[in-house]
């Protein structure tokens, strides 16, 4: 069996229940080197539960998780990291009052000498270099991360995970809170990580972002896998439809068909369609009149 063919991480019929709530049921997933596996799903689909299992925060209650073909369970995030699985959480797991470099090396501090003192200069240098690779220069690495922008914090978290997490990186909705340009930077970095031979799990609810970088797509709904397809077998339209729940999207578009989004009209005119006139704030009304 060649190296590329063996998935680094493999989930077989993984399930997790909290009491009698089944957050995740029969989920299977394969992560290979140099591939981006996108996990999509609406709110409450079980995405977060899935990451928590893989990153070692929660234990699964059903199924088997394999790393390099060997069944295993993680008792803590540290164990997951030791096997090369790094996670960038939605809330980024940064301590807001701590400086940039202290956050970057948290839990993996570099120490030197027989007294094992922190090697601050080297940590600052590496931190600066790694952030520069992501296109961000923070002149004062002693600043608390709480004062930085969302994009900068995202970059610190991703750069940190890539610097320490050698083989699999899990990104939990990295673009959810970002603007268009910052999202682009993050997506570019996902591709860079893939090209560097990492297996990437990209969790998102944005099919457009997923389709830009993904090789493999898994759609979750209400704790179950409803789609598991390779990029070749799928178009963006299909993915979007599957993600929004095909039938539901059709119904929605039928329902909204009367309200032509391109149409510019005074709010009063809309009541001829099938949607009731929304209560628009005065500012928006003024804007619409002007464009009209």
């Amino acid at each position: 069996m060649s190296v590329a063919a063996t998935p680094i991480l493999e989930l077989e019929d993984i399930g997790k229940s909290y009491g009698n709530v089944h957050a995740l049921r029969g989920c299977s997933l394969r992560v290979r080197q140099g591939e981006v596996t996108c996990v999509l799903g609406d709110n409450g689909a079980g995405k977060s539960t899935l990451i928590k299992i893989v990153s070692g925060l929660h234990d699964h209650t059903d199924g088997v998780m394999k790393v390099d073909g060997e069944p295993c369970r993680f008792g803590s995030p540290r164990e997951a990291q030791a096997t090369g699985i790094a996670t960038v959480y939605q809330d980024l797991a940064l301590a807001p009052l701590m400086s940039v470099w202290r956050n970057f090396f948290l839990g993996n501090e570099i120490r030197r000498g027989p007294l094992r003192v922190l090697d601050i200069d080297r940590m600052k240098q590496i931190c600066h270099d790694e952030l520069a690779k992501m296109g961000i220069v923070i002149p004062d690495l002693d600043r608390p991360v709480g004062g930085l922008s969302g994009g900068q914090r995202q970059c610190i978290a991703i750069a940190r995970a890539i610097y320490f997490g050698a083989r699999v990186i899990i990104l939990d909705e990295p673009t959810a809170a970002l603007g268009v340009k910052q999202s682009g930077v993050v997506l570019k970095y996902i591709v860079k990580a893939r090209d560097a031979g990492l297996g990437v799990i990209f969790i998102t609810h944005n099919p457009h972002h997923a389709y830009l970088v993904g090789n493999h797509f898994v759609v979750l709904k209400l704790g179950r896998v409803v789609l598991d397809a390779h990029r070749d077998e799928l178009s963006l339209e299909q993915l979007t439809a599957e993600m929004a729940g095909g039938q539901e999207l059709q119904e929605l578009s039928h329902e909204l068909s009367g309200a032509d989004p391109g149409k510019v009209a005074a709010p009063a005119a809309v009541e001829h369609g099938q949607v009731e006139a929304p209560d628009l704030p005065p500012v928006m009304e003024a804007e619409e009149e002007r464009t009209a």
Partner: protein
Amino acid sequence: MTAAATEPSRAEAIRDDRVATRSLAARMLSRPEVGSLVGAIVIFALFMLVAVPFRNVANIGTILYGASTIGIMAVPVALLMIGGEFDLSAGVAVTTSGLAASLLAWNFGLNVWVGVFLALALSLAVGAFNGWLLFKTGLPSFLVTLGTFFVLQGINLGVTRLLTGNVATADISDMDGFASAQQVFGSEISLGPINLKITVLYWVVLTVVAAHILLRRQVGNWIFAVGGDASAARAIGVPVRATKIGLFMAVGFCAWLSGMHLLFQFNTVQSGEGVGKEFIFIIAAVIGGCLLTGGYGSVVGASVGALIFGMTQLGINYAGWNPDWFKAFLGVMLLLATIVNVYVKRKADLR
């Protein structure tokens, strides 16, 4: 940025001009201990002005002694607060430790040193129990240690009354090992006209060691992290539980050190002592720049806070003012220090 020239890939990195490098002065001012340093200078100048005995060099020893008895506890309490937790039992835990050493040695006729080490084990166990209970119950440490505060207070009075029929322990100064133990925990060193109690040495050593651990050690990084955001710290692989329990045990260790000084300074321990001290430790830490919410603060600041206490306590005496006003003065100091801390920090962050 000299580093930018050495590697071509870095040249393409766009420098965010919204985040400018701060001046050295601004960086110094944004350190957590600045407020307490300013406060210490003001208090020092005030008493130098109004209290004649304050200017006497020989009184430095007395002032530092007062500061050291608070400082020995303010240091671990500050570490614990940076780690995001309170210990309201810290004051009575000192008494518990002194009582335990004395009662154990006296009642079983043991060498005093055996009592001393049994008390150490007990103090560490109380700290570990506080930490364990915190994680077991998931309650805030304010409530958990408020519970142990009352429990220890009751045990101190109850057990002492039970064993001695009195509110204080018996004098142990004639027992085996007392002389050597007093050398360790209660001796005095003369430096010219200044007589320094050994607690001053312990206080300084503790401050240096704790500051080193906090800023230059892996564990220090973890302390900031568990206080700043415990779930983030856990997610990144920091052993949150072990770090916090360790901090409670550090408070236990220092409570033991203070308790031993209490015992060997006065040969006997009053069982009702220590109530209310826990707030003084917390106030010293807060004056020193520790946030009540955790994740930020300084050990050096807490020690300066303790020094402010020592100066105020004796300064009021030396100035001939009524010592009844001491507590009112403290309250004002606390408020002023925290306001200055917040103000200075905000100003420095904006620069």
